[in-house]
């Protein structure tokens, strides 16, 4: 930063930052009509009279959206209002078909919660409410078009207190929020599709000063990394202005990720009067036990608990536990098998190396329940075979891949690679070794048991190391005792 009073450091200032986050709920249909929620594809292909607000239509609340919003509230440790209601937020914009948005205002669905970040700090959450999304504007050279496919898609808006005091904390908070919402099926969390959108309020003040600085809102930043960068930049920009004796203007800014700078969008925030009033077309929102129960049903052991459990109970490495707990379906896939095998470490590395490879290549889809059950059985079989030593690590991978890609029964695939299928070869090799080393055989029989290693080595040489040493050892011992 340039200029500034002598002796004043950036570190003499601190950041005060709060977030407003919109999360798209993972429902099948929109919030108030039966159009599919998934709004991709041809513009205006996913609309009906209700979500474009034709004259005469009425909204009917999608109960599943309420369940997911309650689940989000529970995940954020919030107080849920047993009774709240929808209100109309009135403003004119072409992407808002009714020129009012059905939202919540005076009484939100939930309030007063928090989310704990890694440092143990709790970022407090002020409120959470349900609302409908608007359409999208497409601006062309001399006209603007509206796509209403997204209109009426269910959202929750989450507002934090200004508890965030570093760009890193904002990043961490958002990453964790995103992860648990996806983990518990509240949202698909697809960032490219805008399933999680965040506006950031940034101000700075001298350290330990009780008065807050003027805040600037940064809008439309579409990745957590950019949000972190934008806050970093904005903080420095504001400190610079203050140090130069200037004043922060209340305004809305955007972020340019290429220039790595925020830029002014509009100043002197036009004081909107949204004329909120209770939505007369909808009944009050009542959160009864049935809704709470349905919301709880989706609250699974959270990623951190899962990771901890994997390390403690199955004794796998922190790295493996980290990767295996990155997504719920993967963690569950591991856990369901880990209880059945003797060597969870073998299982963990097999999943991370081979199963994930096949999954990523599209040979299988473990998220799909039908595939999942089949794959689980296959993995179980190859791990068991490995544990018994009847198959090597490499042939385990081969057998697995062959079974899934060529639709061959796993037992057959393993069978082909079993050391057993090369039994003759091994027996022949053993017999050769015994015949070629009569003296050593004599010494072994007299009690020089350490020679077993020598025999194993000789046999392995003859079979190009393609047998399981354990099997070779057993067979050798048997032969030598004859």
């Amino acid at each position, binding site marked *: 930063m340039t200029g500034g009073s002598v002796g004043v450091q950036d570190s003499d200032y601190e950041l005060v930052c709060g977030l407003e986050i919109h999360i798209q709920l993972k429902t099948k249909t929109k919030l108030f009509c039966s159009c599919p929620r998934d709004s991709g594809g041809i513009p205006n292909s996913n609309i009906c009279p209700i979500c474009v607000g*034709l004259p005469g239509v009425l909204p009917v609340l999608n109960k599943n959206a309420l369940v997911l919003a309650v689940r989000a509230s529970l995940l954020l440790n919030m107080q849920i209002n047993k009774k709240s209601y929808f209100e109309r937020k009135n403003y004119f914009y072409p992407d808002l078909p009714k020129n*009012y948005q059905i939202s919540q205002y005076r009484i939100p669905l939930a309030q007063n919660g928090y989310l704990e970040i890694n440092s143990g700090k709790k970022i407090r959450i002020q409120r959470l409410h349900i609302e409908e999304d608007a359409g999208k504007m497409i601006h062309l050279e001399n006209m603007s078009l509206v796509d209403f496919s997204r209109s009426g898609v269910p959202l929750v808006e989450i507002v934090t207190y200004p508890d965030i005091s570093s760009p890193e904390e904002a990043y961490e908070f958002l990453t964790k929020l995103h992860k648990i919402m996806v983990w518990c099926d509240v949202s698909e969390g697809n960032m490219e599709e805008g399933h999680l959108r965040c506006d950031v309020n940034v101000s700075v003040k001298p350290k330990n000063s009780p008065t807050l600085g003027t805040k600037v809102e940064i809008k439309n930043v579409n990745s957590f990394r950019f949000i972190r960068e934008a806050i970093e930049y904005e903080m420095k920009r504001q400190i610079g202005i203050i140090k130069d004796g200037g004043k922060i203007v209340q305004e809305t800014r955007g972020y340019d990720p290429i220039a790595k700078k925020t830029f002014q969008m509009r100043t002197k925030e036009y004081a909107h009067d949204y004329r909120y009033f209770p939505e007369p077309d909808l009944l009050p929102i009542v959160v009864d036990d049935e809704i709470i129960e349905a919301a709880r049903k989706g609250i699974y052991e959270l990623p951190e608990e899962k990771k901890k459990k994997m390390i403690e109970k199955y004794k796998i490495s922190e790295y493996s536990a980290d990767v295996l707990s990155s997504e719920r379906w993967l963690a569950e896939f591991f856990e369901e098998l880990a209880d059945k095998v003797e060597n969870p470490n073998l299982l963990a590395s097999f999943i991370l190396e081979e199963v994930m490879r096949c999954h990523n290549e599209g040979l299988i889809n473990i998220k799909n329940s039908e595939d999942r059950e089949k794959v689980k059985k296959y993995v179980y079989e190859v791990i068991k075979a490995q544990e018994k030593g009847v198959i090597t690590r490499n042939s385990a991978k081969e057998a697995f891949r062959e079974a899934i890609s060529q639709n061959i029964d796993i037992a057959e695939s393993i069978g082909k690679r079993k050391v057993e299928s090369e039994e003759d070869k091994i027996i022949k090799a053993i017999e050769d070794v015994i015949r070629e080393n009569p003296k050593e055989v004599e010494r072994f029989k007299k009690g020089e048991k350490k020679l077993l290693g020598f025999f194993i080595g000789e046999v392995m040489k003859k079979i190009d190391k393609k047998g399981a040493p354990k099997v070779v050892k057993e067979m050798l011992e048997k032969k030598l005792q004859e």
Partner: protein
Amino acid sequence: MLEIFLKKRVYEISHLVKKKELSVKEVVEFFLDRIKKIDSKLNAFLYVCEKEAILQAEEIQKKINSGELQNSKIAGIPIAIKDNIATYKIRTTCGSKILENWIPPYDATVIKRIKEAGGIIIGKTNLDEFAMGSSTENSAFFPTKNPWDLDRVPGGSSGGSASAVASLMVRLSLGSDTGGSIRQPAGFCGIVGLCPTYGRVSRFGLVAFASSLDRIGPFALYVDDVADILYHIAGYDELDSTCPDVPVPDYSKEISVLEEKNHKVKVGVIKDFVEAEGVDKRVKDVIVSVANRLGREFGFELEYVSLPTSKYAVPIYYIIAPAEASSNLARYDGVKYGVREDSQELSEMYVRTRTNRFGDEVKRRIFIGTFVLSSGYYDAYYLKAQKAITLLRRDFDEIFRKVDVVICPTSPELPFKLGEKSQDPLKMYLSDVFTIPSSLAGLPAISVPAGFVEENGKPLPVGLQIIGKQFDEVSVLYVAKCVEKISGCAGKIPQDLI
């Protein structure tokens, strides 16, 4: 023919059709002929669906021939629809220039149910723009006239639907009632108009004016007829959250059970309304006389009751209704449907479209509504009005602990002349003073002809309003039928239209 179509009840005509003593086509053509002959004088219709009606007639005839629709009370009966109810592929204008080209891609729930029961949509009727008004003079297209005196208004906002029934251009029509828009025109036109309990009939497809007050209801010449069409259109609708799952009785059956045992009800006469200063003495005399005869001839116990909060009803209404209207009408912006007044600037396009295409009364209410919802005024107006509604409801609850129904004049006056009030909104607003209280309370209410008063040699109808408990349409209809027997006015249409 005319004798049949004037004197028989709708279900009897439908019965003749089902017995094939009349063809659906004959019925439809009879009414289409009447419309052709008469409507040029009355201007009740904005659109007559001649072709569509004939096609529907053929379809319904086929169904009847194959034995379907036997349980319908309205099969083969043409029905006129107020033009603020969405009809698939049939233009629905709401009496507004802003929607003069709008063709709905869907049917309102009531329309769907009428079609399923074999009813025929014969035309769309005139109304005050977006149902805002009490005379149908606020239609952006033309005013409708009262069949009893062409110099007078038919009432409003459902003036077209009322005028059409009162002139026997149809036997049944649907209207909508927010502050009296069914009852007041029914009273002015000398026919029966029912405003069912809020939530009794789905609003899906009714273009919203004030969502928390809007209701759909029927007009007919006889009480039996409104009972029968209500049976077909009422009941739970998954598309309307405010339309609960309350069982729908067979109204006419229930009424005849009460009639057979000469069931006695306790009737409250609303003192505040009958004795109010602004009530035309002739209207008062008709109502009091009918009330007394209910006591004498039916043995009903009469009690004068008071509704003290009713004096606030009109002011409350003119806060709540415009507030909701200002939001409901925001969607008419020229972006998606209806008419757009083009401009290079978005905000100018909005302003030009809405300035040029909304009428004065609509704008007036949008202004009032926008004002009362503004931050800083919300608590003083909207919130306070909501609290006052609670008090008004309590008043009604109190009364209904003592009596089964209450009665009063539908309007304080006889039908007024075209142009008489159109320059004075406050006078116009006050013509709904007796219908607004039950609108705010969401209670079922009917207007039934109680008698006629001669003015300048012309008989002018007087309507009597009966208000009942929530979802107790049966009592309301039963008492209405008793009034119908006393007055002898049922089925009367102007002599020159016979």
